[in-house]
């Protein structure tokens, strides 16, 4: 079945469209809403967004494939994104990526078979004063070590 936005989201989209003199400018905000509602943006979601904006689906693909935050494949319930940039690495971030790989049994870019966790290494998250840091979905966690990671993961539902 083709995906459809909820009524609430459709209202939000109307409001977003009114902000810009050109419809296409609303693509990033609408894609963010699509990802929140459907989890990822595959061909079907691209068509849906293209329909709203009155553009060809390939135009949506061009945008989706450029920005790293859009998941073109489904991700787990918890998307763990660990910073692998300089400040975090100086402060031991590389060991934490190894630790998460070992703990979850998946490498960067993979999802656990129970679809609970996806692990991704990312570039600077803008929280260098709390290095090493990571994001789980949109929650930031900093000053990490192994114990803290255990604690954070244990607390997840």
């Amino acid at each position, binding site marked *: 079945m083709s995906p459809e936005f909820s009524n609430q989201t459709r209202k939000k989209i109307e409001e977003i469209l009114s902000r810009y003199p050109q419809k296409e400018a609303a693509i990033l905000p609408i894609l963010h809403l699509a990802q929140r509602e459907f989890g990822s943006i595959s061909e079907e979601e691209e068509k849906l967004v293209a329909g709203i904006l009155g553009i060809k689906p390939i135009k949506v693909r*061009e945008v989706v494939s450029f920005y790293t935050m859009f998941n073109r494949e489904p991700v787990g319930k918890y998307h763990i994104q660990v910073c692998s940039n*300089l*400040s975090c690495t100086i402060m031991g971030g590389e060991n934490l990526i190894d630790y998460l790989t070992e703990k979850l049994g998946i490498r960067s870019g993979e999802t656990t078979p129970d679809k609970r966790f996806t692990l991704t290494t990312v570039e*600077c998250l*803008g929280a*260098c004063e709390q*290095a090493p840091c990571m994001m789980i979905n*949109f929650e930031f966690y900093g000053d990490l070590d192994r114990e803290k990671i255990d604690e954070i993961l244990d607390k997840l539902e």
Partner: protein
Amino acid sequence: MEEKVLTKQFDLKNLHKIDVYLEQKGYSAVRKALQMKPKDILEEVKKANLRGRGGAGFPAGIKWGFVPKDVDKPKYLCVNADEGEPGTFKDRYIMSHNPHLLLEGIIITSFCVGIYTAFIYIRGEYEAIALRLEQAIAEAYKEGFLGKNILDSGVDLDVFVHRGAGAYICGEETALLESLEGKRGYPRLKPPFPASIGLFQCPTVINNVETISNIPHIILNGAEWFLKRGLPKDGGTRIFGVSGMVKKPGIYELPMGTNLRDIIFKHAGGMKEGKELKAVIPGGMSAPVLKADEIDISMDFDSLVAAESMLGSAAIIVIDQETSMLDVLKLVTKFYSHESCGQCTPCRIGNSWINKITKRIAAGEGQRGDLDNIERLASNILGKTLCPLGDAAAMPILSLVRKFRQELESHIKIE
């Protein structure tokens, strides 16, 4: 005179809420500005020598002055809150702690230039901060500081938050415009400059969050006051973000021109126990590295250029002796080969090859001539790309190879 300006009230609880902000005489700069003539505001900002805090250091007043006066098209303000330069996190603090200060700056800038619509382009990962900005904007509308006929002045302004989606290049101003228009973030050929043809082909001002946040203080206290907080050619304070192997990483708002050694050893508490300083990146990852004996330097735009580095976003990354410079080089080249938008061949191919060669050295398979090749490739990127990302990659890479050649060579075993 070490007086804070932008971060002065950061400890105040709930400063992000408008009632607390108003108790602190918030929005008095807007009230004052709306009584002024736009040209007098522009004159004051020009006199203040407020240079762009995003990285390039271009004087804000001069940038605004480039916007044509009599055009029949709308004009736009884009606030650059993309904050993607590795090591940088200062704008996050301003937006989360004091969003109304930024809004005041936006209102004054828009009034000065004749703008009715402003967008805050914020990096996608800062979802919570985007939400906070939207709440602050809603409060400002409610109190009559935004929307139609602001404080009965006849001035209108709408402000919208626009989230990016994970692309370093969108911090480059013309890539930001493309992204805001709903396209891939490919930088544009300049000229034309955004001041004449920018967002939706209309005249556009693009300024960084910290730059705009200085405007209310310049209006309230005057250009002279502002200049006293910095240097004659480089007014105001700067928010230095310190990260890496120091005791107290964080933001430090200090006068422009503060000594780098003092920032690291006095303000940020010095090196972590038992760690020894090896190198410092003084202005975000794009800034050429300084060796431990090169850090007695005034942190301002011109002094760092003279030292063949860059103040950039004033993000200071402190590297200790135990950190391998090969790892640093590997991370720098990984970042730029990942973030190159792919438009210009020297940047796309050059960074990719530098990254491959560096990884080969790290895998213990370095070859004679590898470092020369990296230097050659990086030199071929320099100045040969549409946007500054090419230089931003080549400059730190060249500095690492030239200043730490011996250490890097030690990883290459030549049979």
